[in-house]
């Protein structure tokens, strides 16, 4: 290893670092200007990138010269910004920060699905817009475009920093961010400020999308997921500082580049034989960076004093759960036997997804913590089952039980950050954790699936095989076997009844108290820490069961079976139907991609699962606007008699600004007072 080489790789990192910094800028603009923790900024950059690619290569029928294509792409970015503001931001300006974040998740899913539907999954080599060529520095060739990216984004950073510091517009945005109501009294128009900032964000993302063309090809994953390191960078800047976000983004990119260099050395840990550096180290590093950023900066993220409705979706007491379980259970048991194999497979996947969503009902619906990591915990259990068999010969039921215990252990550990970090902060951390577990954990050949897949033995007891490949095929014929379906159904019903009971038990009441207000709960003598950790343990155990069942149903699992996208889709569908109740979870699970509804769409109309994601993303935003609690709550309260009306301003106004200048005394009060989903 030579110093010169290290320096060259650091310089190469300016490229991806610049992109991370640019996306981080979008995160900051969205937060300061519109009060949204926007996880779809990378997706907007991706859309712009594809737009440019299509214009340059004539995918739309006409091939444009570079200057025209650039202009049209930037106009497209502005239009996207206007749409984003009108669809995701404006209607939800009074919603809780978490609802706003979930809305951007809807946009992200729709954008990704749209790109896959329009252009396919393969990466497109983009025509570069930056000059090519290299310079010789420190004895290595460094592409000039790295310096261009750095320079252009530095200029944008300085521009925004200046605007926010010195112009009336910037001052107005800062004032409105701190207290929207008071800004209105000063004659400012928060709506207009939000619109301009969103368009500025979208335009910046357009530029990032164009610049990305020069160092990577466009696909539906890379840029959208770059929001994870960008969130880490923005976290260092407390979601407010353009300068710190830029520097942090740059450093993260450089560190990633340096890791790429280290991977070439023999001392770098390998997985699956020499020459195969261990995967996912970059994602792991970003997760660690994010945790560090959280520890040092989280209390300094200014809460917004805007006029928001902090109420959570209701989690009503279950009504006659046994009746529902018998009625729907009998129907499902019959369907498992009678349906043709494709539908049966969809139904079994939906049942497994139901258990996954049950885990979200406990942790989000009851305890009020939105954790993305639940699906990964299922993966932990699934991979444990696989490796217990291949490495130690342990099979059902012990493998499954150990897998679930393992998921509980990891789940409780993952719950510890939630003792300090709440609401949107927890979403960001667990999102990074999911990404890290998928790449570092599941992508690893030693304890994950590597690139191929990990085999899982069929479950059997006393030599009686009831796995999906069992010989009994039922009326519908073909695999998976109804025996496995019935087994899954049985577990689903048991867990469903248990959570219904949990909601009615004393512990359930304590969970709801913690969800509503942690301080008030503590004041009434509830041990908030224990309730949260027990909640995480229960939820993780349930997620583990679903992961084990998924592993058994496939017979072989890959890193993607429990990936970030699956997790985000589950959360999206859970939110659409209702994440606080058992019937909500069941209905949502029917709808998830891969489930029964998705198969019906494919079989009857030939529609791919991406159509479901595409529509699902939009439905998610519409649900958040019109039925903030999810449509399943109608079962309990009946359909709303009047169309949903925004709460009047006066009721929610004049909440004193939650943070003092520069994180002075009082800053730690920020979100603790209104814990849980609302913060």
């Amino acid at each position, binding site marked *: 290893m030579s110093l010169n080489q290290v320096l060259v790789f650091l310089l190469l990192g300016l490229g991806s670092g610049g992109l991370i910094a640019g996306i981080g800028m979008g995160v900051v603009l969205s937060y300061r200007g519109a009060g949204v923790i926007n996880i779809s900024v990378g997706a907007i950059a991706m859309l712009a990138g594809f737009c440019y690619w299509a214009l340059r290569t004539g995918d739309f029928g006409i091939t444009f010269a570079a200057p025209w294509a650039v202009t049209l792409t930037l106009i497209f970015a502005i239009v996207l910004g206007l749409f984003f503001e009108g669809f995701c931001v404006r209607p939800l300006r009074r919603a809780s920060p978490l609802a706003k974040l979930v809305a951007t998740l809807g946009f992200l899913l729709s954008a990704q699905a749209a790109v896959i539907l329009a252009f396919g999954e393969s990466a497109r080599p983009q025509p570069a817009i930056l000059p090519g060529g290299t310079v010789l520095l420190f004895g290595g060739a460094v592409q000039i475009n790295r310096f261009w990216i750095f320079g252009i984004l530095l200029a944008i950073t300085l521009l925004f920093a200046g605007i926010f510091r010195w112009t009336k517009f910037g001052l*107005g945005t800062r004032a409105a961010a701190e207290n929207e109501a008071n800004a209105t*009294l000063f004659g400012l128009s928060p709506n207009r400020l939000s619109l301009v900032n969103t368009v500025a964000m979208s335009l910046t993302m357009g530029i990032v999308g164009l610049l990305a063309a020069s160092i990577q090809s466009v696909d539906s994953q890379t840029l959208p997921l770059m929001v994870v390191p960008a969130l880490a960078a923005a976290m260092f800047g407390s979601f407010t500082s353009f300068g710190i976000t830029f520097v942090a983004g740059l450093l993260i990119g450089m560190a990633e580049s340096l890791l790429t260099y280290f991977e070439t050395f023999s001392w770098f840990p390998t997985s699956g034989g020499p020459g195969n550096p261990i995967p996912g180290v970059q994602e792991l590093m970003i997760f660690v960076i994010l945790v560090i950023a959280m520890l040092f900066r989280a209390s300094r993220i200014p809460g917004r004093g805007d006029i928001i409705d902090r109420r959570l979706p209701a989690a009503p007491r279950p009504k006659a759960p046994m009746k529902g379980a018998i009625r729907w259970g009998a129907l499902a048991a019959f369907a498992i036997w009678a349906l043709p194999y494709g539908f049966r497979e969809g139904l079994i996947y939906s049942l497994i997804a139901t258990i996954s969503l049950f885990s979200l009902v406990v942790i989000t619906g009851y305890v009020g913590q939105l954790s993305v990591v639940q699906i990964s915990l299922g993966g932990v259990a699934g991979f444990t089952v696989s490796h217990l068999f291949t490495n130690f010969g342990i099979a059902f039921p012990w493998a499954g039980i150990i897998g679930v215990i393992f998921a509980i252990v990891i789940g409780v550990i993952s719950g510890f950050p939630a003792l300090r970090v709440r609401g949107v902060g927890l979403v960001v951390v667990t999102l990074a954790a999911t990404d890290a577990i998928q790449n570092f954990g599941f992508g690893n050949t030693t304890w994950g699936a590597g690139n191929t897949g990990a085999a899982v033995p069929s479950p059997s007891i006393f030599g009686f095989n009831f796995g999906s490949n069992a010989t009994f095929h039922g009326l519908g014929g073909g695999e998976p076997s109804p025996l496995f379906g019935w087994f899954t159904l049985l577990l689903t019903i048991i867990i469903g009844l248990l959570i219904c009971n949990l909601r009615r038990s004393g512990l359930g009441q304590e969970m709801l108290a913690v969800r509503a207000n942690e301080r008030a709960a503590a004041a009434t003598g509830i041990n908030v820490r224990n309730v949260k950790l027990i909640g995480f343990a229960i939820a993780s155990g349930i997620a583990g069961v679903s992961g084990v069942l998924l592993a058994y149903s496939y017979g072989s699992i890959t890193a993607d079976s429990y990936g970030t996208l699956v997790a985000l889709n589950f959360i999206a569908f859970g939110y659409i139907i209702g994440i606080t109740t058992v019937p909500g979870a069941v209905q949502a699970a029917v709808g998830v991609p891969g489930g029964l509804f998705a198969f019906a769409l494919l079989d009857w109309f030939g529609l791919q699962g991406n159509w479901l994601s595409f529509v699902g993303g939009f439905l998610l935003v519409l649900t958040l606007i019109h039925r903030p609690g999810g449509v399943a709550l109608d079962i309990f309260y009946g359909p709303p008699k009047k169309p949903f009306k925004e709460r009047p301003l006066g009721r929610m106004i004049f909440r004193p600004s939650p943070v003092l200048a*520069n994180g002075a005394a009082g800053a730690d009060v920020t979100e603790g007072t209104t814990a849980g989903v609302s913060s």
Partner: protein
Amino acid sequence: MAESILEIEKMSAGYDQADVVREVSINVNAGEVVALFGPNGAGKTTTLRVISGIIKPSGGQVRYHGQDLTKLSPTKRARAGIAHVPEGRGIFFGLTVAEHIRLGYRGEVIEPEVVYEYFPALRELRDRAAGLLSGGEQQMLAVARNLARRPKLLLIDELSLGLAPVLVERLLPVVRQYALDSQCGVLLVEQHVALAVEIADRCYVLSHGDIVLHDSGAALKADPDLVVASYMGQRALPDEAEATA
């Protein structure tokens, strides 16, 4: 008679379909300081919020310079010259004093000199973030910033909240002076009745959503029992009157 700036006629308003103030009529003239008293929950703050447009009245009319305000958004009302200093001061803790004075909508002309003329103490605090100011300084800034807008109608909610009476004694005369200088109408919601009657031309007492007393400041100053009695919901308290006699 001075020009009428604000006329509220039989206005009712409240939250979630429940009226907090009922058929209240108040008027404020140019250059006049009008005080609004009342016990907790009487509807004082609600009245101010209706005027600045944050909540919509359920009945009656609010006229500003003779023009019906119903259709104007809070932003437009502010731009038309209605300044509202809300409870909690309505300033931005992350912005410095100087930034507050630069803050404004597009095309707004703010006169920094007005601020420093009425509150010279703020000159030295120019570069300090508002969150780091003391309560009194923050209140000064809130009033000063709204004076700098040259409003035609100034609404002040609980100037004295969280402040020592000594400070209130200093702030209120500034408001009085400003109203005289600029012919701005001032509607002042206040708990410190004794301090407010000193500077108010006229006073209203609001109790349970109704105006129960309307008199000149001088009259109330001369007979403090009037206000006390109206707070209790009676015209007079016989035994107390006898006791003091």
